[in-house]
């Protein structure tokens, strides 16, 4: 097979950064190729910061941020974004919560107004809280309780791998915790974590930098200054003995398994971390990848397989501790032990024999395509730059990622694979309770 090597291309998105007096950090990345903009506000608080007894609270609070604010009635936020031709959403991650809009470019000031207004203060009322507890319960039913493989593995693997509450608990939350949440809890959470000093605003797309800077000052400048809270260290020691658990999913027709191994700190040891991101793709990206070729095509011991870094598949927006995950669905009666043994065997082979000619280069080329494709949408760019600013103070890293991925060497990938030993592994097995 030809070992042709594609040149890894890069983007050159310009980046302007500044900080307002109240501590809000701002990133602008203009691009006038289409008349649309992306606006993202990212707060440095996520699932890991939830207090004990309040599982699911970060996500519940995300819902409350849409329920009206200082100058806006309930429902107004949705109507003003969509009535400007835009779309919106928010999402809660382990280490951050984001709020975002993508809009025609003529709605820039409106979007800034809406985000600034809720940064000053959401309307936290009993009625809104009860309503959104109900909505979140339906969200959990639709995504977890009423469907097969609900929460697998992002909710079911962390409690096997981790011991401390921040890392191990269910980020969607228990119904009991959600129902007992109070308006006072919400007010406290807002005061503590939704500070201007704990947030990043990013705007991308068809903007004039000078005009956008002026508008941002006008709308966010008088948001009261509050400093970022101290972020605790969520670190935990690595596993020294294999951990394995299983549960029966009454709805699942087929067995499944997921395994994870801890990886280096994504922020403080990026050079050590990146080879794991590449390794996950070498192992699982497409029919030509190692584990798909072996387990799906040759052995037929699994029917589908995926691999990624970060429990939500988010290698460039997660902090320590996190993990490289492999997950597989098995045919009826499939043998999980055998699958895990084969994975060990293939990892050993990778460590001992190295990669085939062209294998690394082609994986890197495809990773570059994925990275570029994700940033093609103005919103993808704004969100990623906001998180890169927040976690690393380096939004321009977005432009460098394809190149940095391309520079990871075979030696580094092999060395990463060598650490994925069974004794460092946590696994969760789904027993098919719905098998016919």
């Amino acid at each position, binding site marked *: 097979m030809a070992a042709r090597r*594609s040149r890894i291309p890069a983007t050159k998105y310009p980046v302007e950064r500044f900080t307002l007096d109240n501590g809000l950090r701002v990133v602008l990345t203009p691009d006038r190729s289409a*008349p649309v903009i992306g606006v993202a506000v990212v707060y440095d608080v996520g699932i890991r910061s939830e207090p004990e007894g309040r599982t699911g609270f970060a996500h519940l609070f995300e819902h409350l941020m849409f329920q009206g604010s200082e100058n806006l009635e309930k429902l107004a936020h949705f109507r003003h974004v*969509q009535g400007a031709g835009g779309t919106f959403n928010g999402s809660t991650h382990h280490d951050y919560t984001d709020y975002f809009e993508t809009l025609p470019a003529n709605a820039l000031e409106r979007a800034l107004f809406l985000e600034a207004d809720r940064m000053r203060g959401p309307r936290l009322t009993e009625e809104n809280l009860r*309503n959104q507890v109900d909505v979140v319960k339906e969200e959990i039913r639709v995504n977890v309780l009423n469907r097969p493989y609900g929460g697998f593995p992002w909710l079911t693997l962390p409690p096997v791998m981790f011991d401390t509450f921040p890392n191990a608990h269910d980020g969607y939350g228990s119904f009991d915790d959600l129902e007992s949440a109070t308006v006072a809890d919400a007010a406290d959470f807002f005061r503590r974590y939704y500070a201007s000093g704990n947030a990043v605003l990013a705007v991308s797309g068809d903007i004039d930098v000078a005009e956008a800077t002026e508008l941002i000052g006008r709308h966010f400048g008088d948001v009261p200054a509050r400093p970022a809270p101290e972020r605790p260290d969520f670190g935990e020691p690595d596993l020294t003995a294999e951990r394995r658990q299983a549960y029966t999913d009454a709805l699942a027709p*087929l067995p499944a398994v997921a395994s994870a191994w801890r990886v280096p700190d994504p922020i403080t040891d990026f050079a050590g971390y990146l080879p794991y991101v590449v390794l996950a793709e070498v192992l699982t990206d497409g029919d030509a990848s190692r584990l798909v070729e072996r387990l*799906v095509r040759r052995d037929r011991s699994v029917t589908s397989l995926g691999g990624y870094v970060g429990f939500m598949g988010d290698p460039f927006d997660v902090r320590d501790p996190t993990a490289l995950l492999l997950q597989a669905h098995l045919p009826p009666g499939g043998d999980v032990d055998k699958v895990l043994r084969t994975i060990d065997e293939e990892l050993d082979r990778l460590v001992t024999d190295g990669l085939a000619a062209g294998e690394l280069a082609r994986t890197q080329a495809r990773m570059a395509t994925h990275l570029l494709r994700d940033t093609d949408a103005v919103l993808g760019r704004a969100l990623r730059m906001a998180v890169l600013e927040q976690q690393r103070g380096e939004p321009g890293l977005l432009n460098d990622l394809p190149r940095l991925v391309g520079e990871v060497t075979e030696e580094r990938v092999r060395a990463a694979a060598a650490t994925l030993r069974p004794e460092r592994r946590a696994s969760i097995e789904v027993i098919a309770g719905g098998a016919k």
Partner: protein
Amino acid sequence: MTATAPPSPRPLPPLGPNRRLKLPKQAERTLANGLTVIAVRRPAIPLVELRLWMPAGRTNLARGAMLAQTMLSGTETMTSVQIAAELQAVGGGLSAGIDPDRLMLSGAGLVTGLDRMLEILAEVLTGATYPGKEVGTERDRLVDRIQVAQSQPAHLARTALLRRVYGRHPYAVQTPEPDHVRAVRPAALRRLHAERVHPAEAVLVLVGDVQPERALDAAEKALAAWNGGGHSGELPPAPPLEPGPLLLVDRPGSVQSSLRIALPAVPRTHPDHAALQLANLVFGGYFSSRWVENIREDKGYTYGPHSLIEHSVAGSVLVAAAEVATEVTAPALLETTYELGRLASLPPKPDELEQARQYALGTLQLGMSTQAGLASLVSAYAGNGLRLDFLAEYAARLAKISVDEVAEVAQRYLAPARAVTVILGDAERVGPALSALTPVRTEPDGAE
């Protein structure tokens, strides 16, 4: 609390002037073998998106699904792994999918790899071999995937709705039975490929950082030799909706009910299309709609209700979908019927219409602003005989629709009397209250 004056309310900033919809640079060519190629330039990132739309009406369900599953499994010169590796080497990938209208190959890659991607595509189109071992592997995988799908409430609800809406039309059943898939052999796939994978009536769309004429030349060079007569199965028009009792599909133990409502709709080219799109938005087609504000933001019955007009070659239908808590299934239906009835009998408020109109116009701009979005849009249009300039016409029509026109189409299409309703859920728990609202016919889950 001290008596401080409340802060004076801040006014919502006005929108700037609307920017005119600007269509990107494009070119089109029909090759001698009948293949239509459309190339659109969007140079924001150094990639190219590829969509190949081939008509697939009246394809045998199990063989069609297996064709899509195994088309990239090998050629005379390449194994499945080599195909994937060669595509990966240029940052690319291809995948195949099928539905009752079309067989589709889609992918994306580095623009420097366009020629290579097209070469591999051509080799697959003209020389896919359907090797026995690969077909065997993929057959088992597809059977497993269907089994998993059949355990998903959303899939079961959709299956029941399609059967109820389409009766004997080919659209009625869109997922093959595992036993039928197990019976598919490589020879049948080679036959089906020879019969159906041909360039006449097919449309290839290329969108990306490439001059359109250069993309057309590349496609012509790679695909001119693709041939083979075949047939494309004409589909009969989809039957009109026949309202009747609510179909309750029993899924014992469900903690939620899946509510699905089908209403009549029209194709994109119909004079009522733009007004119906706006009426749909006002009803349930976006977050700021009456239905979402009512059953989610007011009552907390559901997480993600939405309604959507689905366009297929043989007809269009409006589908409203919500997953609601078991204990509020009947109240959720009541509110849904109320909102449909209210829109069908009273005109919307002017500001409601303006909001929906701005949303419709804005999301056209957003949909065109990425290579992938543009490619999917151009391909969906082309599959229905339209070109990108339809977008400009459509935007102009949206801009002119009046309150009266929305009221008129709402009465004609969204009246609850026209609805076909299917609910999947725990029949024992939800049946009695539903029966108090409307006639109900109950079926076990998975009934033929």
